[in-house]
């Protein structure tokens, strides 16, 4: 798909900050608000814009802390459909936050989010490991998030160190 410069510019702005208003985008790109809305709708319909992530740091909120695990899964691919069918069986579970097919020493990378380690362990042993053609799983628990989807969670670099007025 080939996009126009205007469309690419809109995507660049939304990629930086999806909360920005259509009015602000219009002013930044010297377009009308109407036109901006039209193009955003088109990009949504074409699934170029898939969804608007809201990045919430749940671990800041008491009682809402979560644990994330990334699980390497080895599988035996099935004749005819390869990895797709097994992948589908896995991503249907609501517990699964993301799923990627990987090259290298394992095949699928599954990200699970849960309230406790116990919860994640149960998911792996009861659901993931029992799927036919899953050969092995290796779980890694995430200890701290420094950067997520291009966003630095709490960075030193965000501070404006400039003087208030300068030449």
């Amino acid at each position: 798909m080939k996009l126009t410069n205007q469309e690419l510019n809109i995507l660049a702005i939304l990629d930086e900050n999806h909360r920005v208003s259509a009015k602000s985008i219009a002013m930044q790109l010297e377009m009308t608000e109407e036109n901006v809305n039209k193009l955003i709708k088109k990009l949504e319909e074409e699934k170029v814009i898939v969804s608007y992530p809201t990045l919430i740091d749940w671990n800041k909120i008491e009682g809402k802390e979560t644990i994330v695990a990334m699980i390497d899964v080895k599988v035996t691919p099935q004749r005819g459909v390869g990895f797709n069918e097994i992948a589908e069986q896995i991503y249907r579970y609501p517990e699964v936050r993301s799923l990627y097919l990987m090259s290298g020493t394992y095949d699928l990378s599954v990200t699970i989010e849960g309230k406790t380690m116990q919860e994640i362990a149960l998911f792996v042993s009861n659901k993931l490991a029992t799927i036919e053609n899953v050969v092995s799983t290796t779980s890694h628990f995430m200890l701290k998030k420094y950067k997520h989807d291009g966003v630095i969670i709490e960075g030193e670099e965000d501070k404006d160190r400039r003087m208030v007025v300068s030449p």
Partner: protein
Amino acid sequence: MSIDYQQYLSTTAMRLEPSGIRKFFDLAASMDDVISLGVGEPDFITPWNIREFAIEALRSGQTAYTANAGLLELRQEISNYLNRRFQVEYQPENQIIVTVGASQSLDLAFRAILNPGDEVLIIEPAFVSYAAIVTMAGGVPIRVETNADNGFKVTPDQLEEVITSKTKAILLCSPNNPTGTSLNKDELTAIAAVVEKHDLLVVSDEIYAELTYDQEFTSFASIPSMYERTILVNGFSKGFAMTGWRLGFLAAPRELISVMVKIYQYTTMCAPTMLQMGAIEALRNSSEQVEKMRQSYWRRRNFTVQSLNRIGLECHTPGGAFYVFPSIKKSGLTSEEFAQGLLQEEKVAVVPGNAFGASGEGYIRCSYAASIEQIEIAMNRIGRYMESLVRTKNTVLEEVK
């Protein structure tokens, strides 16, 4: 015993005007939670690859002096860059000096060419250092005032009017700080005719060359027959987001450079070695990031200009740098009163236009090197400030009636 220090001080130094920016800086710095549109530097941090290169240089022990004119490898990169970006050709061996910021380039240029009493034309509103640098080099700054009606562009006629037998050079700055005005090829060519006719030199401050929006940047040295008459000043501060590195450069005819190198070796020796290494990486591998920053400034310029015009602070659309220079005449206040009131009442810092010369009176400089969110808040506050001024004015008028 009390000493009268006046008797020891240089009269030239004592007579220098304190910078209007500095004055305002002290006031702004004393307040908390200020949204600043007062800064003249990028809000980006130097791209990581450049920083990493400098760190590596330090780690591997590159801690000794370089050649006076800078690392030859860097001068070669500067030569390639000038050629690639602006189609001007300079020999790395004898036509380029790496300096401590464009500021020092300007200082070296004027020290090299001025004799006491020589006049230098400065187009105002202008960068705060210009007049002082010329004065310190023994020259006489001659101010040429431009105005908003033609977008703060200087005309050949204006130059003709002030040129005398003492005029030695014109100091050009495009895109300009504080107006953002960018001169196109035709406008530069018209200036070139005057330069040639009167046998002048041009010191061309091209520090904002990477930050132009509506048309390609034209280097003054690329204008026919101007190469021989141009001292090109540029650097890494603005386009590469490297203000704190203090790295700039000069490019000029060999005969001029050799004198500047002589001065440089006695005053500075060379620019910091490990930072010069970082600059090599900046020129080799950062064009994509420079372009990304430029795009971001372009969007913020559009946003800022439109916001100001909606508020009623008339503002031309500048072609470069990261400043807008809206008129505040409607407020009935001087630029200093306006900026001071805005800071105190709404906690937004801008720079009063008169800091850049008398022709800047009636204007303020707003830098849009800030996040869109910050700019948006600042614009709302400026709008509210304007409304409060109008209200006060109306009440005063009522009372007079």
